[in-house]
């Protein structure tokens, strides 16, 4: 057994002490936190704004990237809540 093996065993035993229920919470928390962050982004970050030259028109509801991002993240939250 080398010092690396001892260190590896120490890390493995420490990680084993973490309750699986806490780990499951982390797996669900990651998409939840990102979803909150996405919903708080300013409109300028999630809509075309004035980027399309020559097109001076109001932004359509489906041009907001928050919708797609929320859909993908919402799905992750459901999946990890059920199967984690």
């Amino acid at each position: 057994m080398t010092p690396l093996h001892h260190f590896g065993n120490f890390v493995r035993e420490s990680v084993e002490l973490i309750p699986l229920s806490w780990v499951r919470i982390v797996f669900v928390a990651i998409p939840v936190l990102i979803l909150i962050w996405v919903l708080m982004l300013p409109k300028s970050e999630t809509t075309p704004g004035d980027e399309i030259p020559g097109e001076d028109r109001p932004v359509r509801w489906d041009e907001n990237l928050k919708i797609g991002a929320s859909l993908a993240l919402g799905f992750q939250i459901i999946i990890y809540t059920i199967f984690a």
Partner: protein
Amino acid sequence: MKVSLSTIDYLIIAIYLVTTMGIGLFLSGGMKSGKDFFLGGRRLPWWAIGMSLVATDIGGTDIIGVGGATYQYGIASANFEWIGCVPIMIVAAFVFIPFFYRTGIYTIPEYMEKRFNVSVRTVLACCWLAFMACNIGIMLFASAKMVSGMIDLSSLSHYCISTFGHADWNWDTMICIWVTAILVGIYTSVGGLAAVVYTDAIQCTVMIAGCLMILVIGIYQIGGIQQFKKELDLIAVKNQTDVQKEDPSSNEVTDQNRSLVVPVSSNSPFVWPGILFGLAFILSPAYWIGNQAIVQRSLGAKNEFQAKASYIWGAVLKSVIPIIVTIPALIAVIKFPNLEDGDQAFPHLVSELLPVGLRGLFLAAFIAALMSSIDSYLNSAATIVTNDLYSRFINPDASDKRLLFIGRTMTILLVIWGIFFAHYISTLQSGIYAIFQTLMAFFQGPALAVLMTGLFWKRATGIGAFAGFLSGICCSVSLYALNQPAVYKMLGTEPLFQIPDPFLYFSIWAFLVAMSVIIIVSFFTTPEPQEKLQYLYSRRFQQGENK
């Protein structure tokens, strides 16, 4: 296991191949410059890029491999598509992709020179080039082996032996390698990134349709969703009983078939620390933010908003992929519980579940998956050679037309290299290509450390980044070596890691070592000048907002 095909099946495969080639060649019209070839003239729409991202990520070997891993270890392999993709794709869409788009770069190594120095750019470009060039050969070989394992090509093989000789060659595999390489090589060299992205979009559609078909027919044949759930419950109870027979004191929950979080004590390679720290925090960001083959297509978007939208659309599609790959594998667990090799799950499903005609559609989907990955790596490898090596060191004043010519020539040369390398691998002992793949994945953790410090830490220096990158690679190579039986038996020790294929753990330690070395060396070296610091994330983003 060979899948028996009828004329209709072959016809469907032929229609798919002709359509793909036709679209690829049609898009070659109007190709006038290197920008057209490498970035699709920055005219690509978000929906096509998003589908291309997914198609590039899911290769033919992944469909079989992820299906096989699910058959063997349960749905934890779906983490690679869910927590290993979706969260970072959303973050990348709003943070990193707009940043790279604003810098106007063609490649990630190009950014490294702007932020650090030419040494960091060159070493990263060479690593990516080696990775992609070898991967082209590996993907050609692995995919050809799978296709030739499913389709009966014996009559063609006999013809080749009687015509060309070399009876010792595995002609089934060789025919598949040649056909795939030539088809992909033609449309990629002629149409560049635009052809790759649009054909990927078709390939993504065919791939999803093919896998979805197996899922629907499989669930129907089992007796519906409720029956499917009941069968899985029975398997979970049986597994639990088997474990308690062997070890009556065991209280371990063994329903790994339906658990995404696997405990450390499991023998699965997908235990939660590897998935969370190795995959979600390191390999996944390295892939979606730092992989040239992935980032390049978003740089070809019409504008910054479309570049962001492509990643969001990709994330939505990515949410669906595990359902159509892992659930069929669970169907195989129920219908064929005694397969020795999990990778046989999909071929068995295709043979047993699908009627004539639909088998051809699935095989077209499978071929689509493998072509979509090979074409992307071809185009990105050609971009790196042309942009980071040719126009940087050999001919900095090259005209746009010259760059287009070099890009096309490099694509053809890479196809030829891929065929030879695939042939070389086929002469080696089986499983060798898996070792190549593991070895080449070693630099992803260190590359992420360099990219993150470059983006977010102004004190990071070029010398620090260079030293950190090399140290990280040395770390992962050492860990890999210490886990090989020949090495640890010679040293009289035990393997360092207790799970099979611990590549997720290699990436964690390689990243940490690289990061530590970058920090330490940077503090002992001269800070980078102001013109380099304008490529820090905070400053560039501020400039963009001020415009």
